[in-house]
């Protein structure tokens, strides 16, 4: 699956777009586990691996527009983006 990374996630991964091994479509739980498996450095900073959840202020948006709802499945065509809540400045 193709995933766009922003901010800290991009800084840790060293690139803005990554490919992770994952059957499509997938749900948010499987997505998080695959992401942290591919990038263990995300654990504790972007992702809480034990809870298979994003750590605030990080989150997943589809095509930069909306967060997936509970139970929703998605794939590369939905353009998953790992972003953070913009603030301040």
């Amino acid at each position, binding site marked *: 699956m193709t995933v*766009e990374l922003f901010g800290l996630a991009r800084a840790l991964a060293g690139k803005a777009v990554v490919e992770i091994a994952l059957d499509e479509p997938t749900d948010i739980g499987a997505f998080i586990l695959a992401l942290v498996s591919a990038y263990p450095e995300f654990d504790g*900073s972007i992702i809480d691996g034990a809870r298979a959840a994003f750590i605030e*202020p990080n989150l997943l948006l589809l095509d930069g*527009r909306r*967060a997936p709802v509970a139970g929703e499945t998605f794939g590369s065509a939905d353009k998953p983006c790992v972003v953070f809540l913009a*603030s301040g*400045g």
Partner: protein
Amino acid sequence: MSDSYVGPRTVLTVDLSTKSSHRFDLDDATFTRVLGGVGLAVELIYDYLVRNDLFAIDPLGPENPLVFAAGPFSSTPVPAANKHAIATISPLTGLLNEGLSSSHWSAVLRRCGLAALIVTGVADRWTLLVVEGDRVRFEEADSLLGYSAREVTKLVRDRLVDRTARVCSIGRAGEDGVRYASVENDGRQAGRGGTGAVFGAKRLKAIALRGRGDVALANPAATAELAAALRERAIGPATAKYRVLGTGANMRVLERMGQLPTRNFTGATFAGVERVTPEYAREHRGDYLELRAGCAGCPVQCEHMYVRKDRDRRSAGASEYESVWAFGPNCGIDSLDAVLDAIALCDREGLDTISTGGSIAFAMECVARGLIDESVFGTPLRFGNADVLVPAIEAIVAGRGFGATLALGVRAAAAAVGGNSATFAMHVKGLELPGYEPRALPTYALGLATCTRGACHNRAATYDTDLRNPGGAMDDGERAAAAIAAEDYAIVWDSLVLCKFVRDCFSDFYRDAAALWTAVTGSSLDADALRASAVHIWHRKRAINARIGWTPADDRLPARLTQEPIADGVLVGLHIDDTALELLQALYEKQREQQLVG
């Protein structure tokens, strides 16, 4: 533990016209009602206006007060809390303006035994105000004119033979009356609303503080424990985005979300966005040197500055989101070097970067529409022309040519330019818009319209509500309530004063903040009392504005936001329905009135 407030409670008032000063003490009830920082500054302005029977007030006249109010956690072990508020009547909006600044000056204000400092009058010559514990001195400042705040700090320390003196100062922009001139201390700025121009009108170049008094804690053990826990969380994942890249990283996220205002809000995406991000600078480490800075006592150290390695490191520009946005995407400029140079120049001259960039973007659109000549600053004043930033800023500071018009802000500039320019003058109540897209953020749009300060993202703080719930539905009553909750939440942060960058470090903010307050000050407050303080402070802000001329008609967004949909990006077509916004504002007002009944 008694319920009495522990900590400096003295207010020092200084009249520059008569070179006189006096002091009075605040009672316990005042602190529990308004906390400190913004709350205290607002309360003191309100009392001053009422006591002196003042209504319409000339922001550049002698009667306009400059109020500095310390955060009650300043100069204590609480991290991210060395902050103070500066409130005055803004020469840009004609309404209340409350800004925040940080670091050592904030701490030393309390070490001088002060909860607040009020400056009124106009000096007969340029003045350096020196507060040394119990003493106040008025020194000539003619020799400080033309210098930046950073240079003034060095000169004042040399003069006082005291390397520890803390100085806040204006630059040339404040001296010359630019309506959005800033005030700087310790490299931190109270940027918005033209407080620097109020300094200048008073012929007040700088205020030096020398104080070494102890600041008492009601419960040192509990304070230490709570402060240590907050410090630990403040170096964790909740603040990593500020520590690793800083707020400049907002740029790519907002652009991807179709929410990056571009070219004076004519677009929401920017092809050159990548080249003005901190990611770009970090991924070109061979070219750029990164410097880090932050406020005293803060473990986050959020400020990331960059400069090309072949240049003097003292010319580094801060890669703060709002500043980079204002000169980058909002002016259509994708040169990181040019943007950083513009930011560094604004800091040197003492200018608010948001209003400066917004004014230049407005002028660029005037050129694009044939309303002014493109050669007003020499090099063509066109979106995307990086070469025009420095000459435009220099002309604004010097009041030269069209720069004198832009120095008044976009509202006044539109009145001078004429044509249809008022429809694309991006301001609320005269304050230029920051870099969040109101058409994509409905709660933020409401907060921006109603914000007592004008278009301030930090006082309204309502964008956070929308960003946490992207695409989420909310009925009007819920949205009005959400906007009020966000504003009141921000008021508590701004009055305690804690940096909002640690807001994700609290699991239950009101409960935990009340515990901190009680440990530090000894005055018992619970979460509900903090919420009540926020309500009181918001209504005080509104009362000040109503007293000096605000009317509901001022709570309007720029015409562009209600007449033109978002032109590009993933949210293309989104717009604000003017009628729907009016209904929402009516609900907001009703809920605010109900707070008073409650």
